[in-house]
């Protein structure tokens, strides 16, 4: 044993085994972590088609997309005018109305149809439209009953705790009166 070199064979085997063990442990743990991510069938539900032809001006419907509600609102000319005018107002999360109605490929949308994800950007509640008795908003768009976030007719945040505008749902026009979300 007197000729034990430093590092000797045992040191080498120790480090090599440790390194292989660490990689093996990481490779084993990863599948158990990744299984928590959205599964294929969940991801497959990721598009929703909506027929717009039945909507009346001033009407709003909620459709489900990826398990979440989406607002589809047929805006009145007055709502469109107020949204466009406020492009130049003091905004917490500045965005022009044109950018809020754009399709997901960047092509311009139609001003009357606003397609937004329906969860408040604060903590995820569903805001109420103006015809709801619980609506207390000052901007005519949506009002969140949970913590009082106030959105305008373009879905932009104007008051309350929410940090961001209602998210635009990614959509494209399939025909003149139908869209696909997702």
């Amino acid at each position, binding site marked *: 044993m007197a000729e034990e070199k430093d590092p000797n064979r045992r040191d080498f085997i120790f480090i090599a085994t440790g390194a292989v063990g660490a990689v093996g442990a990481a490779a084993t743990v990863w599948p158990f972590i990744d299984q928590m991510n959205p599964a294929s069938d969940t991801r497959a539900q990721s598009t929703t088609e909506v027929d717009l032809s039945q909507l009346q001006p001033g009407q709003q419907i909620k459709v489900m997309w990826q*398990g979440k509600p989406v607002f589809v609102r047929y805006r009145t000319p007055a709502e469109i005018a107020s949204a466009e005018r406020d492009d130049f107002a003091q905004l917490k999360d500045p965005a022009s109305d044109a950018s809020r109605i754009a399709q997901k490929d960047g092509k311009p949308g139609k001003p009357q149809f606003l397609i937004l994800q329906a969860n408040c950007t604060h903590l995820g509640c569903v805001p109420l439209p103006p015809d709801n008795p619980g609506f207390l908003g000052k901007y005519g768009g949506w009002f969140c*009953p949970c913590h009082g976030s106030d959105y305008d007719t373009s879905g932009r945040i104007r008051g309350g705790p929410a940090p961001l505008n209602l998210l635009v749902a990614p959509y494209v026009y399939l025909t003149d009166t139908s869209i696909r979300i997702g």
Partner: protein
Amino acid sequence: MSGPSTYEPKSGFTRWLDKRLPILRLSYDSFVAYPTPRNLNYWWTFGAVLSLCLVSQIVTGIVIAMHYVPHVSMALDSVQRFKRDVPFGWLIQPMHAVGASMFFVAVYIHMLRGLYYGSYKAPREVLWILGCVIYLLMVGTAFFGYTLPWGQMSFWGATVITNLIGAVPIIGESIHQWLMGGFAIDDPTLNRFFSLHYLLPFVIAGVVGLHIWALHEAGQNNPTGVDPKTKEDTVPFTPHATLKDAFGVSLFLIMFAVFVFYLPEALGSADNNIPANPAQTPPEITPEWYLRPFYAILRAIDFDIGPIKAKLAGVILMFGAIAILFVLPWLDTSKVRSMRYRPAARQFFILFVLAAVGLGWCGSKSPGFSIITAGPYQATVSWIENGSVTREAITSPSPDATPAAMAAAEAAARQRGATSVFVQREGGVNASLIAISGGTPRERTLSAPKSEELDAQINAAKATVGAAAPYVSIKRQTPFVFSVTQLAQMLTAYYFLFFLVILPLLGLRETPGRVPDTIAKSVVAGEAQGA
């Protein structure tokens, strides 16, 4: 603390077993001969109460799991079926649901007892930290469990709390989806929450084992905070502590039974009987009472702190409120354990308890709810009767030049003798101007106790003067309002001040009272509330 074992096997079988698995020796040394301070009061019986709560939750939970279906379309119905159709389901389900609340009643008393008598100080730091781990696991288990009946509060509680993760910059949204197993709270979320809800109580049981091990190594604290020095200071665990625990547990179980049989729904939210609906938020979302203080801290931060957004700051403070408990042993600088001999600290402790209860109240109220409104809401509505109205369109060469063009047009209109001018921007380069000249200025002052009522009065006033004058100007005077959010901010500040400033400084500056030399002396002097 426990000296050499004094267990002596009596029969042939126990002698045989003792050489092979000394489990009877361990039980005897831990729960019979184990020396406990002779002055323990009833606040010390909550360890036994909590052990019972854990056993009760596990037993009732295993039974409910035999009948529960973790699927979004069947979960609520399966709980209802359990309550109505399964023999004794009507009893076992409320035992579990009420039991969760009882568990937290007991754990909060147990923690406050530790805080008051300084049970977290050396050599019991690890014991305290293990207790904090148990508490954190209890919070997680309660949250997962609350999701399982899949009512409106289950769904929206889970939505709001998982959304908090999204406040983490950059990676927040990926973690959020990983946690939910999809893009919203749905079947995959319900299934994993059920799995974790079944798992965590056994993890708690494991950590409780460590907690008791650490307790028996360091020995129990006592109301004087003085270490036992001689045999005079202690009594054997059985029968003294055993009987005291049994009496305390009996009283606790009577309260438990009152809730189970007479008030089974009193601590829950009625909204949770409505099936979960992802498209409809209930008007008021609040967690169960035991998590409301932390919910209030979360909502208290409604302003950005430097680069940290309000939402993230709230999340950090909420988790910080629990995290701070872990380092408490090193924040309190006092050499004296028990606040019985720290009169100043006792005052701050009482304020702390009140602040925590107050935060719980804030968590149950809507954040804008006004506690005190100093005076009425007022508005002055002014208009010009019978003036001549001129309209004008403004166009500027570029969007940047529009504000200047608007100001210039307004000044020009006033030059021409207009008494009242309204300018409104219509778009990038367009604006409109309305000028009124001549006529009689009129004014009306409105007053109402509530902001909504004032709005109604303003609308009514506008309607009545509308025919004579189409344009009115409104000046509002909002009184000072002390809202739930502001109260929550003050109480949150005190919560953190107590741990971060008061306890560290007080230990260095205060003059504690006279601490008795031994436990036995304090008992003889009649200071202890029991022996």
